[in-house]
């Protein structure tokens, strides 16, 4: 697993993908920070991360598109699957590599709260909550991207399909007000990836939300492993 993780993380920075992800993520987060905090003298950072959710939705597919599709296309999966590593090790290694790139991006954005602390006294709980929530949501998005990339050999298909899926998750609860059936409406609302993030930005660390995100990730990682496993048998 560590071998796959190390190779994958290095591959991000040997190819433009890692830089493109970090570049756009930081450029836009910097822009949001400048616009909503610096220029207007506002000390709450959750607005920046609220906007960044949309950016995340666009850049995560770029991060995850080649994870498994590229291996299959270049037949390098033959090396991985005929080596004495488990399929779980391969998939988790790759997932953690993509997650690490997100962590790097988030660590760099820590400059923004530091700047806020220099000039004012922002609520530390809200900032921490926002960061934890954003990280969990990003981790959930990456698991979706990982899963989609296991379904196809083409990176473009993988990226477009991941983006579509994430967009659907994003807009899923827009339909809630017009649903008559209370049970379905409740279910959709409960499932919404975004709603839970809102709680984090208010500084609420709810165990339920954390468990939700971790289960969400576990399900998609598990599904990815099943897809690869099934392909060997079919």
């Amino acid at each position, binding site marked *: 697993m*560590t071998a796959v993780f*190390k190779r994958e993380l290095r591959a991000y920075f040997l190819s433009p993908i890692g830089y493109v992800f970090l570049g756009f993520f930081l450029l836009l987060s910097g822009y949001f920070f400048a616009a909503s905090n610096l220029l207007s003298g506002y000390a709450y950072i959750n607005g920046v991360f609220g906007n960044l959710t949309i950016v995340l939705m666009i850049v995560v597919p770029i991060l995850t598109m080649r994870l498994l599709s590229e291996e299959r296309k*270049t037949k*390098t999966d033959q090396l*991985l699957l005929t080596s004495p590593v488990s399929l779980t090790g391969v998939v988790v290694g790759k997932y953690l590599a993509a997650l690490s790139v997100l962590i790097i991006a988030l660590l760099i954005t820590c400059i923004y709260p530091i700047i806020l602390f220099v000039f004012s006294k922002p609520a530390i709980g809200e900032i921490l909550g926002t960061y934890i929530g954003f990280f969990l949501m990003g981790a959930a998005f990456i698991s979706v991207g990982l899963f989609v990339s296991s379904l196809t050999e083409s990176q473009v298909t993988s990226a477009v399909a991941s983006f579509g899926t994430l967009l659907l998750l994003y807009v899923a609860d827009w339909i809630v007000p017009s649903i008559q059936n209370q049970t379905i409406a409740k279910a959709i609302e409960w499932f919404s990836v975004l709603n839970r993030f809102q709680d984090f930005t208010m500084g609420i660390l709810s165990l339920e939300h954390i468990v939700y995100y971790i289960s969400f990730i576990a399900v998609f990682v598990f599904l990815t492993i099943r897809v690869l496993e099934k392909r060997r048998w079919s």
Partner: protein
Amino acid sequence: MIEIQGLSKRYGNHVALDNISFTVDKGEILGFLGPNGAGKSTTMNIITGYISSTEGSVKVDGYDILEYPAEVKKRIGYLPEQPPLYMDMTVQEYLDFVYEIKKVKLNRKSHIDEVMDLVKIGDVRKRLIKNLSKGYKQRVGLAQALIGNPEVLILDEPTVGLDPKQIIEIRSLITDLGKDHTIILSSHILPEVSAICERVIIINKGRIVAIDTPENLSRVLKNENRLIVRIAGPQDQVLNTLRDIDGINYVEPQGRKEPETVDYIIEAEADTDIRKPLFFALSSKQYPIMMMKSMDLSLEEIFLQLTTDESKTLEISAQSEQGQNEDNAEQPDEIRTEGSNTEEQANIEEGGQEE
């Protein structure tokens, strides 16, 4: 070392492998021969655990691939048809990665250096794999299979796409490796298999059609005692002379290949050597023999006989004649002398015109 029992692989209704069984002994080099799509790569992918079989079992060193996949995979070095190379890594980085992923316990630096020396890629260790030539890529792929010193090597068409010099190098390397490894090698080039392998499995449409040594395979179909003879002289009179010789089953003129001569296919009765009577009969009538050779079936012909339907043989041997000539053109003389390939080629040419 490797035991394969009743292996089948089905994709929906399509049967890729149909009940294949064979064993490979320790230290043996086994050749896997068959036309494209015969199931060679499928078999290899199943043995190495890349895909699973629909039915049947694979045991390596007593370990079943499904029950102890890690134990089996540790013992196998696999070079797939397309070497599994990461183009964005250097050779050194790539082999380091393979070393880690295979959980090798040997000393890292000395082991990787040793493997690189063996396949002669030390001089490109710092180069990106995507910038290497096809031959070097193939060798890096072979190096990958050798990392960890596995007891079993499975090589899927290891010489495909290489130039003649590289083919010779890879072949002699495989022969060397065969001294202390068990090797399964697939190929569609027959002289290659007969040169390297101790035993050959011919596979077609997912079934094994023959397992034997290359020599025995040729012997099986050799019993027909046929000669091809080029004789100078008028055809009618030569034919009359030939018919007077005892022990000849039939004679068939083949037409003129050289001015003033006619080629004949002469079939003798079983266990009769007609070469001497033939010589004396013709020399007494002053019809010189310009050429005489036996029409033993070459491995190519056996292969075609075994893998094609009777009705299609003619058509395909005509095509293969062309294809094999091209194959040969790529190879220098050193290779062609293996298994006296040139002669076999000539046989096919003649044989093709027979029908």
